[in-house]
């Protein structure tokens, strides 16, 4: 019902007032759902006194940093003000592991805060958020300042070309070709390492501009994480395709305060639980699956 209303609202974007009204209704519904749950069914899980999980359970609230601008992972809906995506679903499932009940019920206890790439570490260190679930690639430099649970997803850098292009089948084929990626991204560095002769002189602040430049024939390929490219392929309406020749791994983890081993173990166990229980796959299908990505096998948890 709520989805139906939302879709109707988007279609009738001209009627801004109607759209806003629908959004409000949606919020009230989910709020009501969250309060009725505490009375019913299962008792919330119990944790050792003094642990982060017990503290959060006592407060009845968890603050989560996520992206607000990343389609498929964390995107804030301009009409309803809700954040949607795979990261958000993972966050709800984690919250359900702390507070008990279903993911949707636990959603009412989550406060989402926008975490852009630059402020993720300081947010964790200063305690402004309890966890960061925001397309957060696990790497050694970051492990010095924060800890990671997971990975819960492994993105791969891939290549997007026009649908009629059959010359480019792997990253090596980019040598001597004009390739576009975002200014200052790790994607550019990965290409430079794997295809040193690639011409990377054209780059923009967003990937949609790269896609536009490829449509105009200024570049022959666009490269970055497959999850981002999938959204662009979807938006092109058949004009572009994914080469499907991944050449780097970007394991996404859940960021938490350093040296809270009990909390990290809990998160890793909870992730394994939702991998095995099928909630992970369902969350994928409901978000990234809609962008045309096929559901992969869950990654192996890295207990370091």
């Amino acid at each position, binding site marked *: 019902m709520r989805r139906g209303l939302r879709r109707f609202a988007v279609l009738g974007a001209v009627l801004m007032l109607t759209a806003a009204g629908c959004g409000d209704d949606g919020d009230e519904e989910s709020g009501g759902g969250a309060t009725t749950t505490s009375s019913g069914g299962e008792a919330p899980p119990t944790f050792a006194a003094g642990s982060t999980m017990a503290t959060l359970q006592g407060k009845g609230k968890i603050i989560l940093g996520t992206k607000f601008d990343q389609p498929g992972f964390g995107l804030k809906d301009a009409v309803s003000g809700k954040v949607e995506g795979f990261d958000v679903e993972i966050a709800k499932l984690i919250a359900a592991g702390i507070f008990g009940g279903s993911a949707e019920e636990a959603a009412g206890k989550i406060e989402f805060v926008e975490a852009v790439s630059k402020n993720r570490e300081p947010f964790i260190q200063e305690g402004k958020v309890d966890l960061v679930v925001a397309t957060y690639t696990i790497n050694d430099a970051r492990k010095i300042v924060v800890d990671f649970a997971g990975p819960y997803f492994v993105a791969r850098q891939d290549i997007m070309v026009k649908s009629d292009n059959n010359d480019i089948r792997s990253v090596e084929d980019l040598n001597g070709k004009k390739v576009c990626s975002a200014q200052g991204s790790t994607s550019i560095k990965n290409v430079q390492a794997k295809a040193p002769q690639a011409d990377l002189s054209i780059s*923009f602040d967003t990937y949609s501009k790269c896609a536009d430049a490829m449509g105009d024939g*200024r570049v022959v390929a666009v490269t970055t994480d497959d999850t981002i490219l999938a959204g662009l392929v979807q938006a092109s309406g058949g004009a572009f395709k994914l080469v499907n020749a991944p050449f780097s791994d970007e394991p996404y983890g859940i960021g938490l305060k350093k040296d809270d081993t009990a909390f990290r173990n809990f998160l890793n166990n909870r992730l394994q639980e939702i991998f095995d229980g099928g909630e992970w796959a369902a969350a994928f299908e409901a978000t990234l699956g809609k962008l045309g990505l096929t559901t992969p096998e869950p990654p192996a948890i890295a207990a370091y």
Partner: protein
Amino acid sequence: MGPVLDNLDAYLSGMRTTATLTVVSFGVALVVGTLIASARISPVVPLRWAGAAYVELLRNTPLVVLMFLYYFGLPKIGLLFSGFTTAVLALSLYTGAFVAETVRSGVNSVATGQAEAARALGLTFPQTLATVIVPQALRTVAAPLGSLFIALIKNSAVAFTISVPELNGRVDRLITDTGQTIPLLVGAAVAYLLLTIPSGIALGVLERRVAIRR
């Protein structure tokens, strides 16, 4: 200073591109601006309207918007220009609107008696403009045109948004490659000063030259 000296080649090549971009764009802007100013003061009413429309449209749109509009818009109507050509187009058409207003105010500063005398001598409107009004007006506008030139040097930095490897774009690449943000940006500021200050001095000399002959 180290990161700047290590990448001196990139700075010099960026400065060269910025200088070329500015000089070419300013040349085109002078021609465009003078034509538009002539249209705005011509006796033909539709021409005046067209001139006024041009100035208001171009002067009141942010340069970065024009830059993207030409870069991504023109190919959709079959005109695929390189990034550099697109940047020249955007910079010169934009600056042309300011040149037009400067030239027009210069022309208006020439006493009407001059134009009336030219008419009395039997000169046509184009002749009056070319031999009587414009030479006098140019002296008045030398200083404001110089300011437009210096503004153009700095405005050319916007071309980095469409991947033209001018100074600002080169430095941006260096920053992402090395992470040495502050020294590289200070280097960029100094490099721009090395372009703008000598330009200012040269323009001052030029201004004094035309002023003396009055």
